[in-house]
């Protein structure tokens, strides 16, 4: 079983999740709606006439992303469990790392797409001229999605094995995501202020390092989470 084969297997899992999502489309709709609602609700908390609102604005963006994202990763294992498919998935004659990778990529795509939709509405509702910063924001969204789905997928698998999973998932993963949110909010504040990605210094690299660290740990520990 070569590495190409393993990637193909992982992609089969991802494709299964995406097809199921597209047929039902329940997760992404609730994600996008929740994200937009957070943007809307937080709007009432900030003074529209205030001078320096860019910091608060990027906070709104990432709060919306966090709440929407926790739905996505939570569903990824909960639906399997509810349908009794998790055992079947684990019985597949593939490496556990392949299962993790497949789930991770599925979550990553969901998170990234939802993040882009939230970002689009955010720019319209807050009247932010993105211009040169838009490519940078898409990049930050991608990096944040990778880190989020690395930790999120791991703990969604943890959550699938315990009682009262939905409410607790956020409690488990939000503290772990603090550095990710700080970095993402900082970079997007710089970008929203009209500076290029260069103005953010090494922060984009911090996101890369964070992603690499937690991808590595998650790959190493996932085996123990789903062991029966």
């Amino acid at each position, binding site marked *: 079983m070569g590495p190409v084969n393993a990637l193909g297997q992982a992609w089969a899992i991802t494709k299964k999740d995406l097809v199921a999502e597209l047929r039902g489309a329940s997760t992404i709709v609730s994600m996008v709606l929740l994200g937009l609602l957070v943007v809307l609700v937080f709007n009432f908390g900030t003074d529209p006439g205030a001078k320096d609102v860019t910091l608060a604005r990027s906070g709104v963006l990432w709060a919306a992303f966090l709440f929407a994202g926790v739905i996505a990763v939570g569903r990824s294992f909960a639906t399997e469990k509810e349908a009794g498919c998790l055992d079947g998935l684990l019985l597949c004659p593939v490496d556990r790392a392949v299962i993790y990778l497949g789930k991770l990529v599925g979550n990553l795509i969901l998170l990234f797409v939802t993040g882009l939709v939230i970002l689009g509405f955010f720019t319209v509702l807050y009247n932010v001229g993105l211009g040169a910063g838009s490519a940078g924001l898409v990049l930050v969204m991608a990096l944040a999605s990778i880190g989020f789905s690395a*930790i999120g997928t*791991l*703990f969604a698998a*943890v959550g699938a*094995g*315990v*009682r*009262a*999973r939905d409410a*607790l998932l956020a*409690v*488990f993963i*939000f*503290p*772990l995501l*603090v*550095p990710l949110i*700080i*970095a993402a909010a*900082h970079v997007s504040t710089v970008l929203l202020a009209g500076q290029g990605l260069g103005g953010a*210094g090494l922060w984009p690299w*911090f996101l890369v390092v*964070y992603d690499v*660290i*937690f991808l590595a*740990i*998650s790959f190493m*520990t996932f085996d*123990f*989470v789903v*062991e029966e």
Partner: protein
Amino acid sequence: MDKGPARRDLMVTVLGAVTFFFMLVALLGALVWAPKEATMGDVQRIFYFHMPSAWIALGPGFTVVFALSIAYLATGRLKYDRVAAASAEIGVVFTTITLVTGPLWAKPAWGVYWTWEPRLTTTLVLWFIYVGYLLLRSVAGDGHRRARLAAVYGIVGWVDVPIVFFSIWWWRTIHPRVLTSSGFALDSRMTAVLMVSLAAFTLLYVFLLVLRVRIESMSATVQTLRFRARDRRGGGV
């Protein structure tokens, strides 16, 4: 066989007595013997309890959880998991003490209860991670499954804490800082009291850990005995 538990009991009692003695000395030192701080006055005395609590929370408390989580995953011995759980419980207590005594001291010293300074914010995030770890244990059933899931959280959480600290520190050095945590020069008597207090708190941590692990082991034994009794009755309920 009979002598083992008795000797262990004696050692726990001795450990308790030594901890009590050190704690008494630390209390006397902190409240009576240590000189009054020039600018902050008596409120500075909270430092002798605040700093040792933070040490237990950030140092041995969580590091023991991490080390024993790895040990459990490597060996599959539930004993390690029990010690990790005990350490997390004690860690949450000391983190809470740190978070309560800190603002009490900060209000008269800095004029505010809280500032988003790296050490404070990291301690708060650490508190959330500890509580998350204990919540996970409380919903994860028991036995090896709980141990495995908790161990993964213990490892990921421990790795996260320095990254949290670093990110906040870096973020704060770029943004203007409202308050700087200016230190104060420690008088030799103050240092002595602090050292005694650190020793007392570390002993207290070990003492509580031993007691907590003992209770966990006992409850595991009771569980085993109960199963055995049920089997003897003929497999019925």
